[in-house]
């Protein structure tokens, strides 16, 4: 019941928001629903083993982590949206607000799904819920971005469906159940060739949703044209859900004795994504697109960490939290700078520190954090992943990763620093935007958590991380 309520409450709130006639009151549904969702999530996390619908809905340890991240990130973003929409009164939010809530509901369903088919339906539903969000600005460019998002995303999800079918066929026997727990028990009887095909298809499919290269092409367009808050939710929430889907499939693959094959694929896709992102980040003049490439890079780091195995898995899970929250800061502060200058090109944006000091400072901190500078959280997780590569004698992987991280740092720095420094040029008009409580405080909170994770991981979070890593490493009945 608890999990059903967790999924249903945002969906109901979406209905309420759609029924509300007042444009100015509607955004307030978001923080209310988000607070309720976080409260229910905390109850669900403290419950020993919540499950509903005959085991179709349950929370596994990695799911708990993603649920917490999703709920906190959504609360942060929902407060921001209230402030953001005050600057966008010219556009109706009648579709925008309900779709944000549907996104929360459907991603929560992904997290709670313990059935291969249900999880797939939930990923598809969350894609459909986010498409109108990208189209919010109603410009030709945003249509183009939405079109690419839907087309590439649908192809990816279609391949994930084929992968799910192949997985189902590989597991065919006297018991037709497609619950992850049952699949895991039967994994050692699965045919290895089918299992390999299934993993490859699911990696490409859910990898498209994560934005791994070479299936990343929708990402710069979608993140570049969507409102910053949508970018934050996609880069921190949606991608983490797709990563969770991949982790569940990876676990079955490991139990079926194909763990080495799966890890190899993950390392290759991971390094390729980081390399592609690094190349396109060099000389990037649009700072929102730059953040999209940064997201591709970090998705690469996540799957690379899992592919390296051992404590690399723990590091990847920690990095998922760090990346999600840091991306929140980056996308939201970038959106504020975008609003203040009415441009997202670094040719026109200069002296952001002077014009919007709070957003500028947070953008700088976010940049330092995401590129792995101490004392922020991502430094710890990236350091662990690099050290895992060397500990596992993967010198080329570790060396390549270090080199690419350096390129990314240089590339991002060349875009970010000129934006922030200097004087705003006289022709860059002053817009009505000023940093306020609603568009500032959520970012400060998010940044504070990222800093905290760098200094000391709170023990309840560490326990969740350890449980999830142990769950992914210890495979019952592996052959």
């Amino acid at each position, binding site marked *: 019941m608890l999990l059903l309520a967790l999924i249903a409450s945002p969906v109901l709130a979406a209905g309420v928001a759609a029924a509300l006639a007042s444009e100015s009151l509607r955004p307030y549904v978001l923080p209310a629903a988000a607070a309720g969702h976080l409260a229910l999530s905390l109850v669900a996390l403290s419950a020993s083993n919540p499950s509903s619908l005959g085991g179709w809905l349950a929370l596994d340890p990695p799911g708990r982590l993603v649920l917490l991240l999703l709920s906190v990130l959504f609360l942060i973003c929902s407060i921001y949206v209230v402030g953001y929409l005050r600057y966008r009164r010219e556009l109706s939010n009648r579709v925008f607000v309900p779709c944000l809530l549907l996104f929360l509901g459907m991603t929560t369903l992904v997290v709670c799904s313990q059935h291969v088919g249900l999880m797939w339906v939930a990923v598809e539903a969350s894609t459909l819920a986010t498409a109108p969000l990208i189209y919010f600005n109603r410009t030709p460019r945003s249509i183009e971005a939405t079109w690419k998002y839907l087309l590439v995303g649908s192809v990816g999800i279609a391949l994930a469906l084929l992968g799910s*079918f192949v997985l189902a066929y590989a597991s065919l026997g006297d018991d037709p159940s497609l619950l992850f727990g049952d699949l895991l028990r039967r994994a050692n009887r699965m045919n290895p060739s089918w299992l390999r095909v299934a993993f490859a298809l699911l990696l490409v499919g859910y990898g498209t949703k994560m934005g791994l290269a070479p299936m990343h092409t929708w990402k710069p367009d979608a993140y570049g044209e969507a409102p910053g808050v949508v970018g934050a939710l996609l880069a921190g929430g949606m991608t983490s859900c797709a990563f969770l889907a991949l982790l569940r499939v990876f676990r079955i693959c490991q139990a079926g004795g194909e763990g080495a094959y799966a890890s190899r694929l993950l390392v290759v896709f991971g390094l390729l994504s980081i390399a592609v992102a690094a190349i396109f980040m060099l000389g990037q003049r649009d700072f929102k697109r730059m953040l999209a490439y940064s997201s591709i890079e970090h998705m690469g780091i996540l799957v690379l960490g899992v592919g390296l195995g051992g404590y690399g898995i723990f590091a990847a899970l920690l990095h998922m939290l760090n990346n999600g929250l840091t991306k929140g800061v980056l996308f939201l502060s970038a959106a504020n700078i975008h609003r203040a200058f009415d441009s997202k090109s670094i040719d026109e944006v200069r002296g952001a520190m002077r014009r919007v000091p709070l957003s500028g400072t947070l953008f700088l901190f976010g940049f330092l954090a995401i590129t792995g500078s101490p004392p922020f959280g991502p430094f710890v997780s990236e350091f662990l992943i690099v050290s895992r590569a060397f500990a596992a004698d993967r010198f080329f992987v570790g060396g390549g990763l270090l080199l690419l991280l350096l390129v990314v740092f240089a590339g991002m720095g060349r875009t970010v620093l000129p934006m922030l420094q200097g004087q705003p040029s006289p022709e860059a008009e002053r817009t009505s935007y000023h940093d306020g409580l609603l568009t500032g405080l959520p970012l400060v909170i998010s940044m504070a958590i990222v800093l905290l994770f760098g200094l000391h991981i709170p023990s309840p979070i560490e326990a969740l991380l350890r449980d999830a890593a142990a769950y992914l490493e210890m495979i019952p009945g592996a052959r």
Partner: protein
Amino acid sequence: MLRLSIINLLLVGILLLNLFMLGTSRIRALIQAAALQGVVLGVMPLLIAGYGTWTTGLIAIGTVALKGSVIPQMLRRALREAQIKREVEPLIGFVPTMLLGALGTLLSIAFASGLPLEPQHRELLIVPASFSTVVTGFLLLTTRIKAITQVIGYLVLENGIFIFGMLLVEAMPFLVEIGILLDLFVGIFVVSIIIHHINREFASLDTRLLASLKE
């Protein structure tokens, strides 16, 4: 035995339709071929399962109605509104894509022969037909420039996945299948909205106009 021969005959028909779709320049014919493919796919679960319960019947009717009628109607309407008749200047010519499609089919057959099947499926061409149709959809998606042709490519890709689903039609709960049909419909619905908006904003369905976002 007759049942198996009929199924294989239908699957060969689907493979031929794939090649036809890659070779044709007329979008109307392309829609027709995709619709025909959808109808053939719709009746296939009945043949495979070899019996008709009311759920298999319902799925068959639903598939035929959606893939054979509703979606083609939507596509034709979009076509009328955009006033386009044929795909000119594909990124790769029609003959080369047909050859690529044929190569994809051969590779699918070779690849499928390495995968073990359940005894009741060994005589059937389901796996190669499925992979080949997925490749066809992918080729249509990547080598054509009209938004509407790309949507048809996506539909063909979905058809390929549906064919693979035939292997599971007896063993798996129908809930998943119905979910998939619903999802297909919602996906097409959204895509048609997009076509509508692209058409209004750009007065064309040429995706080359959608090229302001690039590096």
